[in-house]
């Protein structure tokens, strides 16, 4: 995605002025002084994004439900980050303040408001109107979704890494084809421990009814997640460190990364994810990640696993591992065994590490059955 020139970022299209939103005065949402004759006084008190941190004033009069949901949307609040990091953190109050400062400088500078999904590029992607301040009901995949979710999801989905996701490469679907309002605005609850806890998230089964006539579905259903059979290797990041440079600018360093495929034990089997076998991704959390703000801030790092449930966006009907039973069965390389986990985080990941004896045994080799040609199907 090419960066926008500074003037392009704030160039309002004359079409916009003919729309419902455009017929309102600029200052009605943004504040500032429309009667001022020079730039500084015109922009005094102006709010570039009137939808953050509170969307109710700007959007609530017409979009009451959405504005209310914004208060608990994880896109807005990133509410699961802090408790998750705190679970790994020291209990010392002063040190926790140092950690929170670090989180505010880095983790919490990244969020998405109503405006950042419906009007402009997100701040994380340096902002700027995507269509002359026109409001788009459906976010734009390139300018908005993958502007943030690009390095993993975007690259995997479009095939910048791997062969891409069949939903995109073969069926021209975009993010919004699967991810509806619930996924993006949330379910109105504010006590989620994990982003996968939001109720009503889109699922493969919403479109793909599991068909027991397919032998492998009948055998593996509710034991193995869809991703285990239908994903390709995906991005894993090993060690994000954050800090401030000489000029006081926030930076992160996350140089240790790899495209891997690892089947682990589901650490949080639930009604939504009942499977025992899931894909796990190494997330960038590392014990020394916040050392810039204070040594030992994540002193209880082993409380949580940092190989986590993964939902790679690079689905294919046929993958290397699902072509033959023994591409997976007995294939130690695909499983997150103890040897695959760095010694310093083995204790943290004991719930997801697959003991050697649990790796499914090699199957007796039989000739692959000819699959009946399906009348209709997605892939």
């Amino acid at each position, binding site marked *: 995605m090419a960066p926008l*020139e*500074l*003037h392009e970022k*704030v*160039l*309002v*299209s*004359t079409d916009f*002025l003919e729309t419902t939103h455009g017929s309102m005065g*600029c*200052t009605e949402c943004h504040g*500032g002084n*429309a*009667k*001022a*004759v*020079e*730039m500084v006084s*015109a922009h005094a008190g102006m709010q570039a994004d009137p939808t953050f941190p509170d969307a109710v004033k700007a959007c609530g009069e017409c979009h009451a439900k959405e504005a209310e949901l914004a208060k608990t949307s994880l896109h807005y609040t990133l509410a699961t980050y802090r408790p998750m990091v705190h679970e790994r953190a020291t209990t010392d109050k002063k040190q926790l303040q140092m950690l929170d400062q670090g989180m505010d400088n880095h983790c919490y500078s990244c969020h998405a408001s109503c405006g950042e999904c419906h009007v402009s590029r997100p701040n994380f992607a*340096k902002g700027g109107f995507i269509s002359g301040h026109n409001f788009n009901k459906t976010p734009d995949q390139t300018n908005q979704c993958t502007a943030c979710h690009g*390095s*993993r999801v975007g690259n995997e989905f479009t095939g910048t890494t791997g062969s891409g996701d069949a939903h995109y490469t073969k069926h021209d679907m975009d993010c919004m084809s699967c991810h509806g309002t619930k996924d993006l605005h949330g379910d109105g609850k504010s006590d989620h421990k994990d982003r996968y806890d939001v109720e009503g998230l889109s699922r493969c089964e919403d479109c793909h009814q599991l068909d027991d006539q397919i032998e492998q579905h009948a055998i593996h259903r509710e034991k193995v997640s869809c991703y285990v059979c239908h994903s390709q290797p995906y*991005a894993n*990041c090993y060690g*994000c460190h954050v*800090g*401030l*440079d000489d*000029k006081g*600018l*926030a*930076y*992160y*360093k*996350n*140089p*240790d*990364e790899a495209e891997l495929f690892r089947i682990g034990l589901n650490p949080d089997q639930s009604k939504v994810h009942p499977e025992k076998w899931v894909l796990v991704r190494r997330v960038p959390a590392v014990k020394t990640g916040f050392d810039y703000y204070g040594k030992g801030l994540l002193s209880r790092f082993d409380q949580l696993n940092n190989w986590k449930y993964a939902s790679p966006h690079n689905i294919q009907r046929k993958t290397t591992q699902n072509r033959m039973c023994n591409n997976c069965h007995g294939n130690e390389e695909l499983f997150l065994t103890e040897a695959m986990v760095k010694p310093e985080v083995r204790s943290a990941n004991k719930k997801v590490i697959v003991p050697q004896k649990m790796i499914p045994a090699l199957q007796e080799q039989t000739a692959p059955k000819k699959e009946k040609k399906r009348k209709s199907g997605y892939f």
Partner: protein
Amino acid sequence: MIGKRSMFVWMVVIGLIFSAGDLFASSCVDCHTDTEKLQAIAKTLPQKVGSAETAGKG
């Protein structure tokens, strides 16, 4: 008595007086719909920069 015609003239004059402030003031869209004006202003503004130390996938 003021005739209907002169009443109309007075109303126009009063209206003009009240809107004079708006007529001579800048409005947001004068600049924000004009590419050239914005380009000229943009040249005078400092560029925001991120840290050069950032590295790796975010």
